[in-house]
C-alpha cells in the first residue's frame, strides 16, 4: 500500500512538473508598432509584446545611430506609458538614421524584435490644435461663424524651427442619420482662425481642426466644437426680398398680358413695317382679285400713250448717252444684240440708276417685232427706261447687268454691259444726218411725253419694215462703234438732265 501511494504521488508530482514546465517558454517576439515625433525635437517609440511565455518578461530597447556601431539603451521607459521608449532632446538627433531593436527576455530566454530604421525627419506628427471654439457672428447682411484655436503647445514656431499648417472641417449634425452628411474641409493656412459664411439657419454644426508641421503627417482631429445657428436670421431682409420678387412677377405678368392682347400695335411700334413698293395708279387689290381684262386695262393707265394711236407711226427714239455728263457707271447698261439672223440689233442704254432688273421686269410685253415696235414705244413713265428686246420682240428680262442672255435661237449674244464712258450714239447710219436731234431741230417733235421725252416723227417711213436682216459681219463692240441699225430703231431720246 505504501508503495502504491508512493507511486501515485511520484506520478502525480511528475505529471504536475511536466505540465508546469510545458506552460512556460521563452517569450515571443515583440513588435515595434510606431515611432512619432510631435515637434521634431523628441520622439517616442511604442511596441507590442509577443507572448510572455507564462513567465514575467522584461523588455529593453536598444538603438544604434547611423554612423557608429555603439549600442545604447532607451533613456526613458516610463514617460510615454507602457511598452514605450521616450527619447528626449539630448538623445534625439534629426537627419540621422536610428536602428532600433526591442528585446523581450524572461527566465527561459530572449526574443528579439525586427529592427526598425527611423529618421526623425520622417515621423513628425504634431498633437492636435487646442482650445477650439466657435462663435456665431450676426452681422446684418452676411452672418457667419468664426472658428478659433491655439497651436499645439509643444510646437515651436517662434524660432522658426517648424511651420504649422491647419485644416478645418465641419458638418451638420443630423440627429437621425450620422453617416449621411459629409464633412466639408477647408485649408486654413497658418492662421489661427477661420470664418464660415452663410451657415444654414437652425442647423447644428460640428467643427474640428487638425494641423501638420512642414511636410510631416497630419495630426489627429481635435475634439469637436458645436454651434447652433439661430433660426430667425434677418427677417426684414427676407421680407424685402419676398416683396420685391412678388412685384417683379406681377409686372412680368402684366407686360405679358398687354403684349398678347395688343400684339400688332406693339409690334408695329417696335418693328415698323417696311413700306412696300407702290405703283401710283395701280391697284394691287385689283391685281390680286380681278379678272384678266380688268387687270390689263388697269395696267394701261390713261396717262400713257395708247397702243392704238401709235400703230402707224414710226417713231424713232434716239438714245444719246452723253459721256460728258457725269453718269454713274453702274447706272448705264446697254443691251447688245450680236449676230444672229432676224436680229433686231438694238442698243438700248439704260441711264437710270435703278436696278436693271427691277426696271425691266416691270414692263411686260409680248408680241411680234413689227407690231410691237410701236407698242414698245409706249415706254412708260419715267425717262431713261428702256426695253430690252430680244429677237422676237419678246422682252428680255435682264438678270444681271453683265450676264449674257441667250434668248431664243436667233440671237446669240445678248449682253448687257455697263456703258461706261461711251460717247455712244445709237443712230441709224442712214438716218444720222437726217435727224439732228439734241436741241437743234424741233420741227419733228410730235409729242412730248414728259420733260425728258420727245416723240419725233420720222419723215421717211420707208425703213425698217419686216425684213430685218442681221448683218453677219456686224459686230457691236463696247468701245463706241456705232452699229448699224436695221429695221426699226427703237431708241429713246433722252436728254440728260444737264442740258
Amino acid at each position, binding site marked *: 500500500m505504501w508503495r502504491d501511494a508512493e507511486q501515485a504521488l511520484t506520478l502525480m508530482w511528475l505529471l504536475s512538473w511536466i505540465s508546469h514546465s510545458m506552460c512556460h517558454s521563452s517569450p515571443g517576439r515583440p513588435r515595434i508598432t510606431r515611432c512619432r515625433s510631435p515637434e521634431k525635437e523628441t520622439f517616442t517609440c511604442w511596441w507590442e509584446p509577443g507572448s510572455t511565455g507564462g513567465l514575467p518578461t522584461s523588455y529593453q530597447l536598444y538603438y544604434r545611430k547611423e*554612423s557608429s556601431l555603439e549600442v545604447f539603451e532607451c533613456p526613458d521607459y516610463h514617460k510615454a506609458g507602457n511598452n514605450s521608449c521616450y527619447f528626449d532632446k539630448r538623445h534625439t538627433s*534629426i*537627419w540621422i538614421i536610428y536602428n532600433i531593436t526591442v528585446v523581450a527576455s524572461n527566465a527561459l530566454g530572449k526574443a528579439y524584435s525586427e529592427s526598425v530604421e527611423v529618421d526623425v*525627419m520622417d515621423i513628425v506628427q504634431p498633437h492636435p490644435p487646442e482650445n477650439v471654439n466657435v462663435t456665431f457672428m450676426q452681422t446684418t447682411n452676411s452672418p457667419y461663424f468664426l472658428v478659433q484655436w491655439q497651436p499645439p503647445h509643444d510646437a515651436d514656431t517662434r*524660432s*522658426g*524651427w517648424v511651420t504649422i499648417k491647419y485644416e478645418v472641417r465641419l458638418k451638420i449634425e443630423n440627429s437621425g442619420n450620422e453617416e449621411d452628411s459629409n464633412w466639408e474641409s477647408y485649408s486654413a493656412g497658418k492662421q489661427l482662425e477661420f470664418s464660415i459664411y452663410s451657415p444654414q439657419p437652425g442647423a447644428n454644426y460640428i467643427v474640428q481642426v487638425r494641423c501638420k508641421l512642414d*511636410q510631416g503627417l497630419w495630426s489627429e482631429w481635435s475634439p469637436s466644437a458645436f454651434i447652433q445657428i439661430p433660426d430667425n436670421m434677418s427677417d426684414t431682409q427676407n421680407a424685402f426680398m419676398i416683396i420685391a420678387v412678388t412685384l417683379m412677377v406681377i409686372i412680368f405678368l402684366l407686360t405679358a398680358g398687354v403684349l398678347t392682347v395688343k400684339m400688332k400695335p406693339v409690334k408695329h411700334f417696335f418693328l415698323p413695317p417696311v413700306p412696300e413698293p407702290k405703283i401710283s395708279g395701280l391697284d394691287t387689290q385689283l391685281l390680286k382679285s380681278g379678272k384678266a381684262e380688268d387687270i390689263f386695262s388697269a395696267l394701261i393707265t390713261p396717262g400713257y400713250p395708247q397702243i392704238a394711236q401709235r400703230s402707224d407711226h414710226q417713231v424713232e427714239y434716239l438714245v444719246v448717252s452723253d459721256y460728258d455728263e457725269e453718269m454713274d457707271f453702274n447706272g448705264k447698261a446697254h443691251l447688245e444684240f450680236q449676230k444672229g439672223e432676224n436680229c433686231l440689233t438694238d442698243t438700248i442704254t439704260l441711264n437710270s440708276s435703278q436696278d436693271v432688273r427691277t426696271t425691266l421686269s416691270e414692263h411686260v410685253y409680248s408680241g411680234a417685232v413689227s407690231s410691237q415696235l410701236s407698242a414698245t414705244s409706249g415706254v412708260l413713265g419715267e425717262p431713261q427706261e428702256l426695253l430690252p428686246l430680244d429677237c422676237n420682240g419678246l422682252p428680255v428680262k435682264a438678270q444681271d447687268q453683265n450676264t449674257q442672255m441667250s434668248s431664243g435661237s436667233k440671237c446669240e449674244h445678248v449682253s448687257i454691259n455697263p456703258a461706261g464712258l461711251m460717247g455712244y450714239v445709237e443712230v441709224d447710219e442712214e438716218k444720222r444726218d437726217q435727224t439732228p436731234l439734241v436741241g437743234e431741230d424741233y420741227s419733228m417733235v410730235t409729242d412730248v411725253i414728259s420733260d425728258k421725252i420727245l416723240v419725233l416723227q420720222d419723215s421717211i417711213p420707208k425703213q425698217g419694215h419686216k425684213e430685218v436682216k442681221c448683218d453677219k459681219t456686224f459686230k457691236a463692240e463696247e468701245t463706241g462703234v456705232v452699229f448699224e441699225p436695221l429695221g426699226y430703231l427703237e431708241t429713246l431720246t433722252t436728254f440728260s438732265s444737264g442740258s
Partner: protein
Amino acid sequence: FGLSLPAVAVLLVALLCLDPHGRVGSAPICAHGPSGCHIPSLADLFDRVIQHSARMHSLSNDLHSEFEQYFLPSKNHIGKIYRKCHTSNILTPNGKDNAQKLAREELTEVILKLLMAWRDPLFQLHQSMAHQQDFNSFSSNKALEMGDMAHELRKGVEKVAEKMRVLGMLGNSVTGLSAAEAMLPLSDSGEAMSDYELLYCFRRDSNKVQNYLKILKCRIVPEHDC
C-alpha cells in the same frame, strides 16, 4: 589728302575707341536713389529664399518617393542607409538647439557649403536619369529643375549674406563663403553613389537647408511669421 577708304575707316574706329565718350558703361539702375527702385528688404529676401528652399525640398521628396515606389518595393534595402552621403563630412547641427547655438555666420556658411556641394552631383543625377529608359521624362525634368533650383538658391543665399554683411549683421569672420567647394558624389569607399542614394541624401540635405534658413530668418528678422 588722298587717304584711301580703309585708312579712313581705321581712323574713325580708332577715334571711337579712344574717345572716352564713345564708350558705353554700365551704371546701376538705382544709382540715383530709391525713387525709381524697389529694393527688397532683408525680410523679403529671406522670405523668397525660404519659399524657394521649400519648393526644392518638396521636389526632392516627390522624386524620392517615386523612386521608392517604382524601384524598391521591398523595404529590404537596409544596406542603403549605411552608405554615407558625400556631404557627411560637412558638420551640420543635428537639432534645434545645436542650430540655435551656432553663430549666424557659421550657419550661413553651412548652408552655402551644403548647396555648393550638391552642384555637380545634381547635374550628374539629371544626366543619369535622362539616359536611363526607366525614368520617364517627367522625372528627369524634375531632376533638372531640382538642380537649377539648388543653383538659384545658392545665389539667393549669397545675396542674403551679402546684404547682411552690408547691414553689419555678419562679422568679418566669414571666411567660409569662399571656401565652399564643389564635391564629388563619392561615398566613403570611393565608389560612385547610385541614383537612389543621391536622391535620399539630397532629400535629407534640402530639409536641413530649409530648417537652417528658417532659424536664421527668425533670429535676424523676427518681425512676422515667427
